[in-house]
C-alpha cells in the first residue's frame, strides 16, 4: 500500500547543510502496524512527515495506493492528507476552546461535511475509543490518556487508510501508554488500514507488526520484536 523509495532530505545551506534522511526505502501493507524507532535526531519524524505528505523530500518517491504523492500540487496534497491520512501528533494539538466532540469532528468539517453530520460521526468515533461520556468536555479537563484517545478519535473519524502516530506515549505514563497502543492495535488497526508509529519507547514494541530502526538519517535494519 505504501512504497517509500530512496527518500533523502537535507536541511540547511552550505557548511551547515545536514542530511536528515538518507536513501530510505521500505514498504507498509494494509493491516500492518509499523514502528520506526531510533534515538532522538535520527530522522524519524522527518521521514514520517515525508510519508504523510507534509514535508517534500529532496529525492525519492512515496507511493500511497498507487499514487506518487509528491507529484501532486499543494491542494491535491492537502486533500490527500485529509482523505487518506489520520494524524496523532505528539502534543495532540487539540483545540482547547472546542469540546472533545468538536475537536474530533474537525477533519470532517475540513472535508466540507455538514457540522451536524460531523458531530454525529465524531460521537461514533469517541464511542469507539470509549470516551463518548466525556465528549462535551474541553480537552483541558481531560487526562493525558483521555486527550490521547480524543486525538485518536479525531484521526480515525474520517476512516483514513493510513494512521500516523508521532511518539504516542511520550506524554503518558508507562501503563497508560501501553494500554493506548494496545487499544489501537486491537480496535483501530484493520485489514484496510496501515499504521506507522514513530517512537523510541521500547515498552510498546510488543504491539508492532514490524520495527524499522533508524540512525543518523539512515535505515539501519529491522529489529526483532521484544516480547
Amino acid at each position, binding site marked *: 500500500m505504501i512504497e517509500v523509495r530512496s527518500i533523502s532530505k537535507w536541511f540547511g545551506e552550505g557548511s551547515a547543510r545536514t542530511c536528515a534522511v538518507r536513501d530510505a526505502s521500505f514498504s507498509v501493507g494494509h493491516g500492518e502496524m509499523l514502528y520506526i524507532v531510533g534515538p532522538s535526531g535520527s530522522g524519524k519524524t522527518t521521514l514520517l512527515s515525508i510519508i504523510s505528505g507534509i514535508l517534500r523530500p529532496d529525492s525519492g518517491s512515496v507511493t500511497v495506493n498507487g499514487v506518487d504523492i509528491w507529484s501532486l500540487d499543494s491542494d491535491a496534497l492537502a486533500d490527500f492528507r485529509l482523505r487518506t491520512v489520520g*494524524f496523532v*501528533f505528539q502534543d495532540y494539538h487539540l483545540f482547547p476552546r472546542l469540546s472533545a466532540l468538536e475537536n474530533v469532528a*474537525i477533519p470532517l468539517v475540513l472535508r466540507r*461535511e455538514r457540522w451536524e453530520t460531523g458531530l454525529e460521526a465524531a460521537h461514533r468515533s469517541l464511542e469507539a475509543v470509549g470516551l463518548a461520556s466525556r465528549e462535551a468536555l474541553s480537552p483541558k479537563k481531560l487526562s493525558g490518556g483521555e486527550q490521547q484517545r480524543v486525538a485518536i478519535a479525531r484521526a480515525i473519524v474520517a476512516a483514513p487508510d493510513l494512521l500516523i502516530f508521532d511518539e504516542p506515549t511520550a506524554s503518558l505514563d508507562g501503563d497508560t501508554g501501553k494500554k493506548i497502543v494496545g487499544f489501537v492495535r486491537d480496535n483501530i488497526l484493520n485489514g484496510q488500514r496501515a499504521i506507522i508509529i514513530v517512537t523510541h519507547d521500547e515498552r510498546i514494541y510488543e504491539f508492532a507488526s514490524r520495527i524499522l530502526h533508524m540512525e543518523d538519517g539512515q535505515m539501519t535494519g529491522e529489529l526483532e520484536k521484544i516480547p
Partner: protein
Amino acid sequence: MKGLFLLALKLLLGDRGKFATLVIGISFAVFLMMQMTSMFFGIIQHSAANIINIGARMWVLDPAIRTPLNSIPMPGYILDAVRSIPGVEYAEPLYMGAGLVHLDDGTYQPVTIIGLDDATLMGRPDLVAGKILDIYRTNAFFVVKDGNYAKLGSPGIGTTFEINDHRGMIAGIAQVPLGSLFGIPTLYTTYTRATEDLPPTRYSISYILVQPKSAQDIPKIEEQVRNLGYLALTDQEFIRRNDQFYEFQTAMGINILIMTLISFIVGLSIAGETFYMFVLDNLERFGALKAIGARGSDLVRMIVFQALVVGFLGYGFGVLFSSALIGFSRLRIPNYAAVINYQNLLLAFGMVLVISVVSSYIGIRRVIRIDPFDVFRS
C-alpha cells in the same frame, strides 16, 4: 463551508478576552468616526438650513457669496432682468438679515429675519398655528418653532415684542425642516416690513428666488444671470457651494477629516494588533489544521471570516453607541448639529472593512507561512 465558518467562529468566541478587545476596539473606532462625521455632516446640513427651508428651485446671488448665512444685497433692476429671462416662470425677491429682539427681561436676542415677497410669499414656511394671511396684519411676524424658539420666551400668537426699535407681533407659529446652525431664532415677515424694520442699505434684495418653467431652462437662466454679473444656482448647487465653503475654506473640514483618520488609525492599531495576537496564539492550531489537510484557502477564509465578524460587530456597536449619544444629545439640545446619514454610515463601514481586511491580511501572511512540519517538530 458552513462548518468551516462555524469552526472559525468557535475559535474566535473561545478566546473571550481577545474577542472582547477586538469588538470594543473597533466599536470605539467606529464610534469616534461616526461622531466626527456626524458632526461634520450635521454642521454642513444645518448651515444650509435656509436653502432647504425656503425650498426655491433656483437662487440668484452675488458671486462672492459662499454660504447663505451671509448675503450681499443686489440692486432692484437685477430682479427685473431675471424676470425677463426666457425660461423663468417667476422670480421673487427675498430679504435675509439679522435683527435684535428686545426681550421682556431687558436683554436682547439676535434673530434672523426672512422677508418674503409681499405678493406671492414665495418660500413661506408651514404654519402650525395661525393663518398665512395673518402675515399681512400690522407688525406681523411668524416665529419658527424650533430649538431656538424658547430663546424668545416661547411667544404665542398675539405676543408683542420690540425688534430694532419697531413693534412686532407674533401672528403665526411656523415649522421648518431644519434649525439654523448658530442657534439663532428665525422670524418670517413680508419683504416690505423686513426692509422697513432693519437698518436700510443701498440695496435690499438679498436673494432672488426663481421658479424655472422647466429643468431644461435652468442652464439658459444660469448663463443669462451670469451675463448680468450675478450667479444663478439651483438649490442643490447652492447647497454644494455651501458644503465646499465649510469643507475647504474653513479649518472645520480638514480638522474633522484628521480626527476621523486618527480614529481610523486607532481602530486599525487596536484591531490589527489584537487580531495578530489572536492569530499568533492560534498559530499552532492553524498549523495542525494545515497538517490534517486544510488548504491554504480554507485558512484564509476562516481568518477573513473571523476578521469580518469582529468588524461587523464592532461596526454595529459603534453605530449604536453613536446613535444613542446623538439621540440623547438631541433630547438636551434640540438643534444639536449632528446627523447620521448614509454617507457617514458608508464611510465608517468602508473603514471597518479596511480594518478587517488589513487585520486579516496581517494574520493571513503569518498563517500562510506556517510549515505544518513544525507541528511535528513541536
